[in-house]
């Protein structure tokens, strides 16, 4: 028991297992640090940058930073919350997020963060890029308009022998998710569903199923994202 690491978030005393990252450790202590790319158990990507916290005056992503003894972490500050909201807004204008027509609406983590931050309209102009969806996989629909490039699928969905089924293509503003056609054709129902579930937005969809949950009963209809974490402890 004495192995636990002591640290603070916004002055609140917290305890972590050795080697735990700040984001997971915070959650275990009832503190929600918003994030889009992180999933507990996956190797952190540190790519959405939303979980940015301040440690010893430096901005660090909570998901990629291991907790250290005595760490003092700033999380809920006006500056950080403004930046996080700005990133969510960047993601909204960078893609084509037509929430009213999206199968993932209500269960979408990007949308849920926008709700949590009370985003009424992004401060940045919409880009309306032309992006091509990919429907060639037998069980999955890749809707690139909604992709936020979090790499959750890249990191978590692999073949039994460890090959990548998803990967990035191109770079910079042109980056897009590609699916390996050969390997996608061999995906089981279970694997395909896992891929759709791990996607935080409506970019990977399990074919021939959608809008199955009525409005009002979906994950974020009544409860803000992160509220489950904040309720614990």
């Amino acid at each position, binding site marked *: 028991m004495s192995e636990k690491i002591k640290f603070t978030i916004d002055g609140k005393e917290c305890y972590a297992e050795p080697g735990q990252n700040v984001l997971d450790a915070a959650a275990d202590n009832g503190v929600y640090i918003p994030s889009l790319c992180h999933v507990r158990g996956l190797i952190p990507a540190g790519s959405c940058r939303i979980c940015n916290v301040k440690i010893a005056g430096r901005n660090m992503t909570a998901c990629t930073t291991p907790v250290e003894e005595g760490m003092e972490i700033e999380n809920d500050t006006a500056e950080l919350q403004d930046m996080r909201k700005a990133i969510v807004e960047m993601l909204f204008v960078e893609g*084509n997020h*037509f*929430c009213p027509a*999206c199968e993932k*609406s209500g269960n979408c983590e990007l949308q849920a963060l*926008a*709700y949590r931050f009370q985003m*009424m*309209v992004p401060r940045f102009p*919409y880009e309306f890029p032309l992006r091509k969806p990919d429907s060639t996989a037998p069980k999955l629909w890749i809707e690139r308009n909604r992709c936020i490039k979090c790499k959750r699928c890249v990191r978590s969905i692999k073949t039994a022998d460890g090959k990548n089924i998803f990967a990035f293509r191109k770079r910079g503003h042109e980056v897009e998710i590609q699916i390996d056609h050969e390997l996608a054709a061999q995906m089981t129902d279970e694997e395909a569903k896992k891929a759709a579930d791990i996607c935080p937005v409506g970019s990977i969809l399990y074919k021939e199923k959608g809008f199955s949950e009525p409005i009002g009963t979906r994950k974020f209809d009544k409860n803000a994202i992160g509220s489950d974490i904040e309720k614990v402890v």
Partner: protein
Amino acid sequence: MSKPVVATTSLAGCFGCHMSILDIDEKILDLVELVEFNKSPIDDIKEFTKPCDIGLIEGGCCNSENVHVLKDFRKNCKILISLGECAIMGGLPALRNGIPVQECLEEAYLNGPSVSGNKKGILPNDDELPMILDKVYPCHEVVKIDYYLPGCPPRAELIWEALAALITGNELKLPYEVVKFD
């Protein structure tokens, strides 16, 4: 004190947001007590007859007429509110954004599966018709917008609470469930 004057319009929208205004049920009677409607499809006043306090805009701008109406609203209203997803981000009409206008016109009038009878391949080009914009613009990318009420449509409760707060000057406190994008 005279009643605040409210105007409303639907640009490239589906009138769903107007339906949602009416969806405040019996509070509509309170609303009529509280405000006076000017130019609006609700009372069918076609032109502004006096300066207004609040303009509610449904829909984005897909053609030149939308732009003219929106600019007219900006001129005549002290406060402009983008009401609903289409006004805020273009909404479903903006699904065409990114695709060249030429392709859209060809699909609509020449090559689309529902096109029949346009054997001469005529594209509407009469001067009386509104001109199509290169994309569907969110209202705040055409004129200055003061407030935004998201939703498709915005929940009736949201519209009511927001209008009430504006009129009374009270602080707007919205429950989590009310602000939704769908």
